[in-house]
């Protein structure tokens, strides 16, 4: 019997569904028309306007500062946590530990955003960039821990024991054996944390104080309160950056796979 073509048709239709809005957005970013309904000629004017808007650059720098800090912090805390989960698996403490690491991944963002806002108000912390940073570390930690934990599944402890048998102290063992071996997992987790932090809107929106505007918060206010053609241009640039990053990382991992084989 001939295999059905339905799965293939659905797949390519979904891919079209995924990229149609993105394509229209990018095309529109070069449209001279203010409302984008009709094509009024090719123009770079929205890009020029975008580069002249200082508040966007400010928001971008805030986003990068928060993301860099949150990534480093969550990498340290997450790796440590993943190591504990793996090394002492089965103990009662680790069961609870796993629970508190896993739950933030399941709960909707809005719940985390509101609960952190309540917490910051309860302990009377002034809202600002600092509170966004703390919130981001909290949700990134779980993603890093889970990524590192996945890498630890096929980690061989006899190597650590061998190092210790050969007279390495715990500091040398951690720095020269454990960390280099876990580095790919930690970096993958860090990359995920960085992307999630840069893109987070819901949680940041709840815990941001006045003046602490990150790029997603800026984009949201642009969507809600006018300036559509400028967002087209900004979105097109953001898409370009992500597509390039993903393609480069794919290309690197593909090359690695080839040379490694």
């Amino acid at each position, binding site marked *: *019997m001939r295999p059905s073509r339905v*799965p*293939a048709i*659905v*797949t390519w239709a*979904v*891919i079209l*569904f*995924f*990229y*149609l*809005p*993105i394509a*229209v*957005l990018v095309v529109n970013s070069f449209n001279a028309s203010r*409302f984008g*309904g*009709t094509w009024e000629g090719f123009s770079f004017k929205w890009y020029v306007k975008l580069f002249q808007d200082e508040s966007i650059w400010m928001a971008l720098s805030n986003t990068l500062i928060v993301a860099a800090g949150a990534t480093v912090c969550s990498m*340290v*805390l997450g790796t*440590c*946590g993943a*190591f*504990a989960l793996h090394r*002492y698996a089965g103990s009662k*403490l680790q069961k609870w*530990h796993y629970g*508190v*690491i896993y739950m*933030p991944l399941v*709960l*909707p963002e*809005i*719940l985390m955003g*509101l*609960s*952190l806002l*309540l*917490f910051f*108000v309860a302990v009377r912390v002034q809202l600002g960039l600092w509170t966004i940073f*703390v919130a981001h570390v909290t949700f990134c*930690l779980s993603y890093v*821990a889970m990524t590192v934990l996945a890498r630890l599944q096929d980690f061989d402890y006899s190597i650590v024991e061998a190092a210790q048998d050969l007279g390495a102290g715990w500091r040398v063992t951690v720095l020269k054996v454990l960390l280099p071996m876990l580095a790919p997992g930690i970096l993958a987790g860090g990359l995920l944390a960085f992307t999630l932090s840069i*893109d987070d*809107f*819901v949680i940041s*929106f*709840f815990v941001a104080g006045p003046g602490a505007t990150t790029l*997603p918060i800026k*984009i*949201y206010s642009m*969507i809600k309160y006018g300036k559509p053609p400028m*967002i*087209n241009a900004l*979105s097109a640039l*953001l*898409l370009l950056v*992500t*597509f390039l990053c*993903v393609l480069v990382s794919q290309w690197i991992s593909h090359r690695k796979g080839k040379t490694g084989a």
Partner: protein
Amino acid sequence: MKATARRQWAEWLVTLPSFVWLTALFVVPTLLVFAITFRAPTPDGGFGKEWTLTTFWSLGNPNYPAIIWRTIWVSTVATLGCILLATPMGYYLAKADERRRRWVLLLVILPFWTSFLVRIFAWKVLLHPDGFLKHALEWMHLVKPDTTLLYNVWAVLLVMVYTELPFAILPIYAAAEKFDFRLVEAAKDLGCGSFRAFCSVFVPGIRVGLLTAFLMVFIPSLGSYVVPDIVGGPTSEMLGNKIAQRAGPDRNLPHAAGLSAILAVTMLAPLAGYMALRKQGTPGSDLMEKGA
């Protein structure tokens, strides 16, 4: 004896950083949501020190049941839509050759790495009364010129499926990859049609993946706020919108906490169901593997 004490000490040492951070900034705040429901709002936007039931009773607002009901049905339909599209995709991906699979997976994951707000905004542009899709549909005489595609519950559903679909495709593909396609061949040899084989052999075979996909899409959907906020209107408000409104412009934190508590409780039912099914489902699937 000394060794166990040392081991325990070391365990605490590596566990404490993440455990303490998450207890202080995740567990305690989550419990606060429930506690603050029973406090009164203060004029400065905070909450009082006394316990009160006023917020709790004000949650009896007659508008809320409709919003809660809408949140549940919109999330359910969006989740089913995602699973309906993702299941044939999982089948296709699992059967495709290595090169094609890599490309399709990349195309699926790429939107996931792009900004969430940008993807929603793209739909706002597309569905805009002056937008590309509206003009195209009008030209094909599929809609009347005065139909609005934006700011209704259908727009919310469409965009929710759009943003959540990768989260359904990935677990379903992961399950389909492990599925033994000889079972489908066997069913066809025994005279079963393609569609029937798909429904009664493939679908039960990937049920763990389907269950995970359900959870991965349904729970974030229940809490969605940005999608109904940007492409929805007053008639498609969801629980998330109300929470944001009470916490933001209205600045009534106890009320927002009460609504979030309702959301958390709504979420617990599918979560508990999933845990129970997974516990039950695991031995069954082991049996299947042994039988195969």
